[in-house]
C-alpha cells in the first residue's frame, strides 16, 4: 500500500520587508552544520541547500532528489567574470577552477552526499518553475519502487543579474520587487509522518480549477514561480504562498511546507498546492491528513 508521508522538513526562506516591499532572506547560523571552510567556499544557494538538507534529517541511506530552476548562479557568474579579458585586453592566464566546479547544477547534490557519506542515487531536476515538482515526482517513483525513505528538496538563489535581465526584458519594477530565494528540504517516509502526499502532477496547458482534479480539497495554496511576468491567476478563496516567500522557480517547495503546516496545525485536512509558471505550466501537489 502506497502511503507516502512527510516525516520531517527544514528550510531557509525570505520574509516580506516593509520598507523595500521586497523579500529579505532569513539565514540561520549555518555554523552549527557547516564548517567555516565550507562556508567560505560555498555560494549562497549551496549554503542554504546543504544546511536545509542536513537540518531535515537526511541520512546516508536516503536517495536524494533535488530541484533547481537556475542552479548555482553566484558561482556561475563568478566564473563568467573570470573569463572576461584582463586589463591588458588579453584572456587571464590564471583562472580559479573553484567557481566552475561549484557552478554545476548538481553541485548541491554532491555536497550533501559528501557531508553524509551518502552513496545512494542522486538526481537534480532543472525544469524551470516545475523543477521541484519534477524532483518530487521522481522521489515518489523511487518510493513506488520500494524505497522506505527519500529526501527531496529545492533551492534557488537571487543575484542582482536577475533584476537586470528582468529590467532588460520589460518587467515592471513592482514585479521585480517580488523576486525571492530559498531552500526547502523534506524527508519522506513510507507510512510515517503527520501529512500524506496523495499525488504530484504537472501540466503543460492552462488549468482553471483544482476541484476537477480533487473534489475533496478544503484549502488551495497557490503561488507563482515565474520571475518576470505579471499575468495573475486568481484563486480568491485560497492563500497565496508566493506572497509570503517571494517568487523563485522552486518556491512551490515552500508552498508544500506551508501546506504541511496548515494540516499539522489543524486548519485543514486536505490541501492542494497549486504552482503556476506562466499561464501554461502548472504543478499540483495534493496533501491530506492521514
Amino acid at each position, binding site marked *: 500500500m502506497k502511503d507516502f508521508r512527510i516525516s520531517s522538513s527544514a528550510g531557509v526562506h525570505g520574509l516580506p520587508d516593509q520598507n523595500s516591499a521586497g523579500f529579505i532572506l532569513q539565514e540561520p547560523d549555518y555554523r552549527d552544520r557547516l564548517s567555516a571552510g565550507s562556508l567560505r567556499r560555498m555560494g549562497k544557494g549551496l549554503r542554504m541547500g546543504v544546511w536545509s538538507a542536513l537540518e531535515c534529517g537526511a541520512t546516508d541511506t536516503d536517495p536524494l532528489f533535488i530541484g533547481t530552476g537556475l542552479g548555482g548562479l553566484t558561482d556561475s557568474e563568478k566564473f*563568467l567574470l573570470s573569463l572576461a579579458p584582463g586589463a591588458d585586453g588579453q584572456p587571464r592566464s590564471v583562472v580559479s577552477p573553484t567557481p*566552475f566546479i561549484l557552478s554545476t547544477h548538481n553541485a548541491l547534490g*554532491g555536497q550533501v552526499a559528501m557531508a553524509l557519506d551518502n552513496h545512494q542515487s*542522486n538526481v537534480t531536476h*532543472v525544469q524551470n518553475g516545475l523543477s521541484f515538482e519534477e524532483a518530487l515526482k521522481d522521489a515518489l*517513483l523511487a518510493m513506488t519502487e520500494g524505497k522506505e525513505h527519500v529526501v527531496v528538496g529545492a533551492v534557488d538563489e537571487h543575484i542582482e543579474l536577475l533584476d537586470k535581465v528582468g529590467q532588460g526584458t520589460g518587467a515592471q519594477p513592482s514585479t521585480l520587487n517580488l523576486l525571492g530565494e530559498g531552500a526547502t528540504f523534506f524527508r519522506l517516509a513510507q507510512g510515517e509522518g503527520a501529512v500524506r502526499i496523495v499525488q504530484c502532477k504537472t501540466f503543460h496547458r492552462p488549468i482553471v480549477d483544482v476541484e476537477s482534479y480533487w473534489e475533496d480539497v478544503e484549502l488551495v495554496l497557490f503561488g507563482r514561480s515565474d520571475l518576470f511576468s505579471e499575468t495573475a491567476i486568481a484563486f480568491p478563496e485560497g492563500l497565496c504562498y508566493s506572497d509570503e516567500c517571494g517568487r523563485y522557480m522552486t518556491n512551490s517547495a515552500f508552498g508544500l511546507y506551508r501546506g504541511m503546516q496548515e494540516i499539522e496545525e489543524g486548519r485543514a485536512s486536505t490541501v492542494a498546492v497549486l504552482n503556476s509558471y506562466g499561464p501554461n505550466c502548472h504543478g499540483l501537489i495534493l496533501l491530506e491528513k492521514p
Partner: protein
Amino acid sequence: MKPVFVTGIGITCALGTGTSSILEALLSKRTGISNLTRINGLHGEFLGGAAELDENSLHNFDPTLSRTTSLALEAVADLKRSVAFMPTEGTAFLNGSSVGGMDTTEVEYLKVDGGDWQQYLQHPIGAGTDTICMALSPGLERTSISTACSSSANSIMQAGRMIRYGGYHQVVAGGTDALSLFTIRGFDSLMIYDAEHCSPFDEDRAGLNLGEGAAYLLLESEENLKISGNKPLAKLSGWANANDPYHQTASRPDGSGALASMQQAIQCAQLSAENLGYINAHGTATPNNDLSEATAIKRLVEAPPPFSSTKAYTGHTLGAAGAIEAVISILALQQCMAWCNLNHSTAMEDPGLVPVKEHTAVNDMQHVLSNSFGFGGSNSTLVFSKV
C-alpha cells in the same frame, strides 16, 4: 520484470548525424576531433569535437538559438526520420544537459554593454527543453536532468524506471550539450584539457578534449510496441545511479564508486558481470577517471570483457555523453563489435588493464554496459541487451 525497449535513435555529434554516419566513422576509426577556433572569447586553436549542423534539415533553424538547443533539434529531427513517434497519454520527454543555455549567456555576458537581455531567457536548461519539446509534441510531460557528465545517462535511466515501475508507455530520453567557452576554460582551469588528441587508458594520458552533440532514444513498453508497430533495436535492461561521495570533481582512486554503479546496474538487469560482451567506458582520459574506472573494471570480474572509451572519436560531450555512448553501445551490440580505443600506445602501470586497441569481434555479444561519471560523485551505468 517489465522489459523496456529501445525503438528509435536520433543522434548528432562530431562523427556526423544519424546512426549510419556514426557507424561508418567508428568502423573506419575516424576521429571527429580537430583544431577549432570558433569559440567566442577564446584565443587561438584548441582540439575539440564539433558537430556540423545541417541548417537546411532544421525547418525553423534560428541562429539566435542556444547551440545546445539547435543540436538537440537536429537529433530530434533525426529520431523522427528513423521511427514513428505518436505521443499518447503516458508519454514523456526527458532531457539531460549540463551546459544548457550557457553558450548563449557567455556571449552576451562578456559584451561590454551587457548584451541582448532577451538572449538570457535561454539560459535555464528547462527553457531549452521546452523549445525541444515543441519539435516533439508541445504538451508533453517533461523534465530536464542536470548531473554534470552523467546527465543524459540519468535521463535514460529515469525513462527505464518510468516504464518499468511508473506506468509510462513511451519516453524520449537523452541529452544535449554544446561546446562553450565556459566549459573549455573550466576544464583548462582544472588542468585536465589535453592540448593533444586525448588518449584514454594510456599511461601518458594528459586529460580530455571536449566535444558537443545530442542524442535521444525512443523507449517503449511492450504494450506500446503493439500500438506503435515499432521494431525494437535493443532492450534497456539495467541501470544504476550510485553517488561516490569523495571529492567534488574526483573519483575514489580505488574505483569503489564506479564499481558500485556497475554492480548495481548488472544486478538491476538480473545478470552477472560474466554476461557482458563489451564495456563502453566513461574513459575521459583524465589521469583520475581512467585510473579509478580501470581499477573498478578489474575489480568487477576476474576476466574483464573487452572495454574501450570512444571519447577520442567524439570528444567528451559532457551532459550528452551518456546518450551518445548509449547509441555507440547499441551499435556495438548490433555489430557484435568492441570498438577500438583510439590513440592508445602504453599500458597503464596501475591497474595494468589494456582497452581493445583494434575493433574486436565478440562472438554472441548479448549485453553491453556503458558508464557515465560526473562532477559531484555522480556515477551512473546503463546496460543494453539484445532483444
